[in-house]
C-alpha cells in the first residue's frame, strides 16, 4: 500500500504510526508467532518482571491467556513496558496488539483514541496512601496537603474534582513514571500518594517500611480496569473479549487448572460446549475448539489468576471485593459460552 507507507514516514516524525485501518490483527499475530502486549513498567501483582526476567502479574496473565488460546503456549508473548503517557500511542501505532496495563475504561478513551475496551478485568477505585505518622484517618483531613501523582492518568482529574468538591486546597506534583512518583512520596516531597487502590497496595510493597504507610478508607472514583485493542478489527476485539469471559465462566463452572483435564471428559452439555467436544465455538472466534482448556491450563480461571497475583495467595493480599463473581456477592459476570 503506497498510501500506508507514506503515512508511516510522517508518523515516524510525529511519533505515531498509523497502520491500515482494518488490519487483520489475528493473522498478523499468527504469522508473527507472538502476541505483542503492552504492560506497565513494573507494578507488582499486575505486571512486573521477576528476578529471572519473566513477566508475571494479573495483566500479564490476560495476555498469556490470549497467547494460550491462539498458540497453546502462554510464553508466546512479547511484553512491551509502557508508561501511562505512552500506552495509547503504542496501541494506535500498532506496536502492540493488546494493551493490558491497568487502564481505566472511560467514555472519552473509548471514543477518541481509536481503541476499544474489551471488558473489565479488575474493578478498582482511586484512593490515598499516607504515612501513619501523619495521623490522618480520612481523606477529608487532607486540606493543604501535597499530593504525588503519576501523570497521564485519570487520577489527576479525579484528584482535582475531589478536592474541589470538598473545597480543600492541595498541591499536585506530577511525575512521568510510577517509580519516580513513589520515590518522591518516600522522600517526603508529598504527604500523600494517590492512585488506584490496587496500585497503592502494590507500590506500598516497594517502600522501605510498608507497615509505616496506610491506605485511607475513601475510594473517590470508579476505575474499571481492562484491556484495550485497536478500533476497527472486530475479530481480534471479539477474541480478546472472550478470553476474559472464558476465564470468568471457567471459575463459575468450577473449572480449575488442576481439574481441567477431568472436566473436559464430562458429558454435561454446558461443559461439552465450553470444551469444544460439542460444536465449534472456538473456531467461530478464529482459534481452536479446545481454546478454553488451553487458557485454563495456562493461567487458570479468573479466580485462580486473581488469587495468585493480587489476592489472598499473593504478597498484596487484596480482598476479592467487587471482583468476586456475581453469584458470590461481587459484580464479575460473563455472558455464557454457547
Amino acid at each position, binding site marked *: 500500500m503506497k498510501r500506508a507507507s507514506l503515512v508511516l514516514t510522517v508518523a515516524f516524525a510525529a511519533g505515531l504510526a498509523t497502520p491500515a485501518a482494518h488490519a487483520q490483527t489475528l493473522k498478523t499475530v499468527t504469522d508473527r508467532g507472538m502476541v505483542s502486549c503492552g504492560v506497565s513498567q513494573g507494578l507488582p501483582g499486575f505486571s512486573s518482571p521477576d528476578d529471572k526476567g519473566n513477566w508475571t502479574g494479573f495483566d500479564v496473565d490476560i495476555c498469556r491467556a490470549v497467547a494460550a488460546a491462539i498458540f497453546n503456549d502462554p510464553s508466546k508473548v512479547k511484553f512491551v513496558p509502557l508508561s501511562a503517557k505512552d500506552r495509547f500511542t503504542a496501541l*494506535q501505532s500498532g506496536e502492540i496488539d493488546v494493551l493490558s496495563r491497568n487502564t481505566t475504561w472511560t467514555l472519552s478513551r473509548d471514543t*477518541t483514541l481509536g481503541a476499544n475496551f474489551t471488558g473489565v478485568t479488575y474493578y478498582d477505585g482511586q484512593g490515598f496512601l499516607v504515612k501513619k505518622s501523619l495521623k490522618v484517618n480520612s481523606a477529608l483531613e487532607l486540606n*493543604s496537603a501535597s499530593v504525588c501523582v503519576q*501523570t497521564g492518568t485519570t487520577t489527576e482529574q479525579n484528584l482535582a474534582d475531589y478536592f474541589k468538591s470538598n473545597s480543600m486546597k492541595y498541591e499536585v506534583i*506530577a511525575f512521568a513514571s510510577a517509580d519516580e512518583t513513589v520515590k518522591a512520596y518516600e*522522600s*517526603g*516531597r508529598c504527604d500523600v500518594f494517590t492512585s488506584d487502590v490496587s496500585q497503592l497496595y502494590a507500590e506500598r510493597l516497594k517502600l522501605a517500611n510498608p507497615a509505616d504507610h496506610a491506605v485511607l478508607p475513601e475510594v473517590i472514583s470508579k476505575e474499571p480496569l481492562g484491556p484495550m485493542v485497536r*478500533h*476497527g478489527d472486530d475479530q481480534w476485539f471479539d477474541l480478546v473479549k472472550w478470553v476474559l469471559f472464558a476465564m470468568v465462566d471457567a471459575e463459575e463452572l468450577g473449572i480449575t487448572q488442576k481439574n481441567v483435564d477431568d472436566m473436559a471428559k464430562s458429558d454435561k452439555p454446558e461443559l461439552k460446549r465450553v470444551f469444544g467436544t460439542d460444536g465449534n465455538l472456538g473456531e467461530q472466534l478464529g482459534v481452536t475448539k479446545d481454546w478454553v482448556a488451553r487458557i485454563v491450563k495456562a493461567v487458570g480461571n479468573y479466580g485462580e489468576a486473581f488469587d495468585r497475583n493480587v489476592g489472598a495467595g499473593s504478597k498484596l493480599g487484596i480482598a476479592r471485593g467487587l471482583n468476586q463473581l456475581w453469584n458470590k456477592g461481587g459484580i464479575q459476570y460473563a455472558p455464557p459460552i454457547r
Partner: protein
Amino acid sequence: MSTESRPPPPQFAAKLRRALGGRAGWGGFAFQLLFVAVLIWIGYEIVVNARANLQAQRITSGFGFLGNTAGFDVSQNLIPYSGSDTYTRVFFVGLLNTLLVAVIGIFFATAIGFIVALGRLSPNWLLARISGGYVELIRNLPLLFQILFWYLAVLAALPNPRQGIALFGSFFLSNRGLVIPRPVAEPGLEPFAIALLVAVVAALLLRSYARRQLFEHGRLMRIWPIVLGLLIGLPLVTSLVFGAPVMFEIPQLKGFNFAGGSRVIPEFVALLLALSLYTAAFIAEIVRAGIQSVHKGQMEAGASLGLSRGSTLRLIVVPQALRVILPPLTNQYLNLTKNSSLAVAIGYPDLVSVFAGTTLSQTGQAIEIIAITMGVYLLISLVTSAIMSFYGWRLGRSLGNT
C-alpha cells in the same frame, strides 16, 4: 523590435541563471523546481493520509480540544490557573514555566561559565585546577542523572514543613520548597515606583555624561557613589514621605503546609541547579577558547598601559573574544532551553510535562500536541538565535567591522 523595449542587460540574465541554476544553468533550475514541487506534494500527501487514516480509525483529530476544560491542577503557575480552565491555558502555564527556568538558567549558566573560565585561565594553580576539575566532572555526567541527583539530594537534605528551617521568622525552608514573604501593594507603591524610575533615568544620564567626559576630555569621573545614592536615597525618601510601598505577607504553617507567602518549589530549584551547572561547564570551555584566541599581545599591551588584569580582560580581551564566543554560546543557550524538557522526570510542570504529557494522554491527540510542542521549541530557539545574532551584529559594528 521597437526601440522602446529594453531587454535586461545580458549580464543580469547570466547572473540570475547562475544564482538559480548554478553551473547546470536553466536545466539545473528546472530540477530544483521539480524537487521543491515533489517535497510540497509529499507534505500534502502526508497530511491528507494522516487525516484519512485517523478518521478511518475514528481517532479524534483537529484542534478543538484546546477549548475543552483541562480538569487537572499544576503545582507552579505564573498566570492564574485552576482545573476549570482550558487546555489552551494549560499550554501557556507550561510554556511560561519552561521560559522561566530557561531564562534564569541561561543567566546563571553564563555567569558561572564566565567565572569558571576565568578561574581556569587564572595564574593561581589551585583555582585553575578546581575550575578544570569542575568542567571535567560536570560535562562528562549525563544531564538527566544530574537533575535526579540534585532533586533527590535537595529533597533528602531538607526537613518536612513542620520542622522547617526558619530564617528571620519569615523565610521557611523545607522539603516543600522555600517559602518567602509575599509583597502586597500599598498606597505608597506609586510614588516609590516613580522615584525609582527618576533615579534610574538620572543615573543613566550621569553615566553617558561621564563617558563623554572620559572620551572627549580624558577626565575620569567616579560616579558610582552618586549613582548608589540616587538609586537608594530617592526611593527611600519617597517611602518615608508617602508611606511604605509594600507590606509583606508572612507565611504561616497551617495543617500540612504553609499558607500565605510565595513559594519556590524544590523541583524548580533542582532543575535550575542542574541546568545551570551543566551548561556552565560547556560555556566555561567556550569562553576559555574565546579568550585564548585573542592574541597574547593584547594582554601585554593592556598591562603596559598600566591596566590591572581585571580591567584588561574586561575592556580589551573579552570584547574581542566575544566574536568567537558568541555563536557556540548561542548553541549552549538553545541546548539549555531544550534540555529543560527533562523536567518531566522530577515533576516540574514544564511544557512537555503538562502539555505533551498530561494533556496528550487525556485527549489522546498525539499528532496535534506533538506538532504544537515542536513548533513552540522551534520558535523559542529561533527567537533566541535571532537575539544573539542581533547582539553579534551590534558587537561587530562596535568593533569596527560592519
